[in-house]
C-alpha cells in the first residue's frame, strides 16, 4: 500500500465549494477514475481521503493537498491523467508524489490578495503600520485582539486609485493561524465611521510553507 499526496488547484467558481463538499466531490472523482484506493476498516468503511489545511469558502488556491492510499503501484502521470479527466470547473490536478512532510509541519501560507476599495491609500497605511491589530474568536475565551505584525511578512504591496495588491505570508499552522479576511475586517471596523468601504476582495492562496521555510509537499 502506498501513500500518495495529490496537489490540486481550486480556482474560479470552485472557490464556492465548501470543505465537506470538496471531500465528497473528490471521493466521487476518484471512484469515477477507478483508482484502486484503500478504504478504512471497521463498522462504517469509507474511502480514505485526507484533506490538508482547510481553506475558507470563497478563497482560491494553487496549493490544495489531499492524501490517499493506493492498493496498487500506479505511475504518478497516470494518476494525474485519470483523475484530471474526471474533474472540471476550476479543480485541476497539479502534481502527485509521495508525501514529504507531515500535515502538522505546515507553518505558514502565502496569499495574493487584490482588494477594490474606495481609499486604497488608507488601507495600505493600515497594513504597513507598526502595529496591525485584528480580532480573533476563540471557543473558550471568546473574542480577543491580537497584534499580528510580528508574525506576518509582506512580500509585496502596491496600489492605485481603486485597487490594492498584496503578497503576504501569514501563520497557518496547528499552533497559530491567521485568516487574511481578519485583516480587512479590522480595517473596515476601524474606518467604519469614515465612509471607507471594501467593494470586493479576491484571495488566492499560492503556497504553504513548513517550519524550516521549505515549500510544503
Amino acid at each position, binding site marked *: 500500500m502506498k501513500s500518495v499526496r495529490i496537489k490540486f488547484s481550486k480556482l474560479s467558481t470552485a472557490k*464556492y*465549494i465548501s470543505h*465537506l*463538499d470538496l471531500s465528497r466531490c473528490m471521493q*466521487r472523482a476518484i471512484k469515477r477514475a477507478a483508482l484502486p484506493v484503500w478504504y478504512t476498516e471497521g463498522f462504517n468503511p469509507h474511502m480514505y481521503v485526507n484533506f490538508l489545511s482547510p481553506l475558507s469558502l470563497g478563497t482560491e488556491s494553487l496549493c490544495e493537498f489531499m492524501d490517499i492510499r493506493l492498493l496498487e503501484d500506479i505511475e504518478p502521470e497516470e494518476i494525474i491523467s485519470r483523475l484530471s479527466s*474526471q474533474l*472540471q*470547473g476550476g479543480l485541476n490536478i497539479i502534481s502527485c508524489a509521495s508525501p514529504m512532510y507531515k500535515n502538522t509541519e505546515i507553518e505558514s501560507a502565502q496569499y495574493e490578495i487584490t482588494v477594490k476599495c474606495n481609499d486604497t491609500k488608507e488601507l495600505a497605511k493600515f497594513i504597513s503600520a507598526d502595529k496591525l491589530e485584528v480580532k480573533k474568536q476563540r471557543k473558550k475565551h471568546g473574542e480577543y485582539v491580537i497584534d499580528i505584525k510580528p508574525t506576518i511578512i509582506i512580500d509585496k504591496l502596491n496600489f492605485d486609485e481603486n485597487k490594492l495588491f498584496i503578497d503576504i505570508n501569514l501563520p497557518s499552522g496547528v499552533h497559530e493561524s491567521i485568516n487574511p479576511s481578519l485583516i480587512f475586517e479590522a480595517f473596515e471596523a476601524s474606518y467604519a465611521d469614515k465612509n471607507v468601504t471594501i467593494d470586493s476582495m479576491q484571495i488566492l492562496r499560492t503556497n504553504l510553507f513548513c517550519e524550516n521555510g521549505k515549500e510544503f509537499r
Partner: protein
Amino acid sequence: MLQEKLDKILLKVNKPSRYTGGEVNAVIKDKSKVDVRYAFCFPDTYDIGMSHLGLKILYSLINSKENYWCERVFAPWIDMEELMRKHSIPLYGLESFDPIIDFDVIGFTLQYELSYTNILNMLDLAGIPVYASERDDSHPIVMAGGPCACNPEPITDFIDLIVLGDGEEVTLEWLALYEQSKREGWSRKELIKRSVEIEGIYAPSLYDISYNADDTVKAITPQGDAPKSVKKRIVKDLDKAFYPEKFIVPYAQTVFDRATVEVLRGCIRGCRFCQAGYLYRPYRERSRGNLVGQVKSLCENTGYEEVSLSSLSTSDYGEIEQLLSELVDYTEEERINLSMPSMRIDSFSKELLDKVKSVRKSGLTFAPEAGSQRLRDVINKNITEEEILSSCKIAFEGGYSSVKLYFMLGLPTETDEDLAEIEVLSRKIIDLFYSLPRRGNNKGIQLSISLSTFVPKPFTPFEFEPQDSEERIAEKQKLLTNLIRSRKISLSWNDVKTSRLEATLARGDRRLNKAIYAAWKSGCVFDSWSECLDTNKWEKVFKECELDPAFYANRKREYNEVMPWSHLDYMVSREFLISENIAAYEGKTTLNCREHCTNCGVAKMQGGICVEKR
C-alpha cells in the same frame, strides 16, 4: 457582467455553490448552434430539486437532441433572492447563466400544491409576466407537468400548456411542434391552439368554466376544436423508454444524493387514499437486465457511493430477489450502498433482508397507515397485523432495533377505537422485541410513530371525502399523546394547518387562482417549508378573495358532482372510483392488479400488467 455581480453576492448567501453550476455531467452547449432553449424549473431550492428523478430524465432526454438545450433553474433561497433583486440579477439557467426570459420554453414541474407560490415568484424573478394572458409573442411559453397536473385548475391563469402523464414521448413530440412553429412564425395563440392536437396536452385558456348557485362546477366547456377531455400519456414499454446514463453530480449537499434507477412505474395495490397509485396506472416493470445495466452505467459515470431502487412499491417487482442478487454482487464489490425504499410489509422476508444487508442498519420503515384491521380494510391497505408483526420479527432478528411506522389521522369512517389500536399495535411490537433473544448489544428498541393528516386527493376513491377539521385532528393527536406513554416510542406528526392548505389546493377550482396570486403578492413563498409557511397570511387572503377553504377541504361531494378536473382523463373511470368508495364504506377490500383485474378503466390503454397473463 453577471459573473462579477454574482461574485459580489455569493459569499453573503447560504450554500453559494447551489448557484454556480459547473457540476460534473452538466450539459454545456454552444447557444449559437441550438434551435430551442428549454429552462426546466423546479419550484423549490437546488438541494430539494436536484433529487427529482423527473428532472434528471427530462434534462437528459431533451439534451440528447443536438439542437435542443435544456438547462436547470431552481428557486433561489430567500437570502439570495433578496440580493438578486437588489442587484437586478434576473433568474438564470445554471448552465449558461443566461436570463431565462430569453429562452424558448419554461417548464415547471408540479410536485406538490404548496410549491405554487414559488412558481409565481420564479416567473416574476425572471421578468416574465405572471399572468399567461399578459404574455406576448416575445415571451417564452410556460408549461407544466408532474403529479399535480391532474388538477392544475388553481394555477391555470399562470400556465400556458399543461402535460398530463408520462413525459418521455410527449415532450419530444411537442418540442418538434415548437420547432415548426418557430420556423413558420406562428403566433403564441396559434401555437397553443395547435398544441392540443397532441394527446396529453391541455391548454387551460381554451376552456370556459361555469358555476352553479352553490359554487360547485356547472360545466367545463371547450372552445373551438379543443378536445372535450384531455387523455394522459403513458409510456407503454418502460424498457424502450429513455433513461439517462449519467446524472449531474452536485457539489452542494442535496437530499437523496445518490444514483437512482426507476424499477417500475405505477402500482398494483389500489390503496384508496393514494393518488400516485391511480395516476401512474398501469403497473409496468423494467426488465432485470436493463436495470442492472442502468445501475452500472450510472455508478461508473457519477462515482456515487449509493444507489437507490426507486418506485411506488419496489418489493412488488416480480423478480425482486434475482434483481437484488445480481445487484448486490456488483455493489458489494464496488463498495456502493444499495438502498431500497418503499418496501411493503407483506413482501418483506428474511431473504430480502439478507440481500440488502449492505444497507446501514439505520432502521426500517413500514406504513400500516391505520391502526385497526377494520380501517385498513376501508382504505384497502391489505396488510394484516400478523404480517406487520412477522416483518418486525424478521427485522429484529436481522439486527434492526429501530422501526418507524407511518399512520394517517382523519381517514374516512375513523373512530377513536381505530386510533386506540395504534397504541395496542405499538405495544405488541415492543413486547415482540423483548421476547426475542437479545443479539449481544444492549440497544433497546426505538419505535417511531409518524402521524400525518389525511388529505383527500383527486382521482382516488376518496376524492368525495371531507378532510377532518383542524379541531378534530388536534383532538386525535391529543388522544394518541395521552394513550402512548412509553418512553420507547417517539410520536411525531405534521402540522395540521399545512395539511389543510394542501387539501384546499388539491381539489381547488379556477377561483383559487386569485388567492394564489394574492398570497404570493402578500409575501407567501416556500409554503412547504415550515419556517416560511404563514397560514395567517393565507387566511387573510382567502377572506379578501371571498373564498372559503372549507368548501374545498372539508366538504363531502356527491357522486354526481362535476369536479373541477372532470375534463382531464387519467383513464381510471368515475364509476370505478365510486364503486371503490362504496366498498370502502362497506369495509370490503379489492384485489390487486396482479391477483385479478378489477376493471378500473386503465386496461383501455393496453399496456403493462393489464395485458399480461395473470
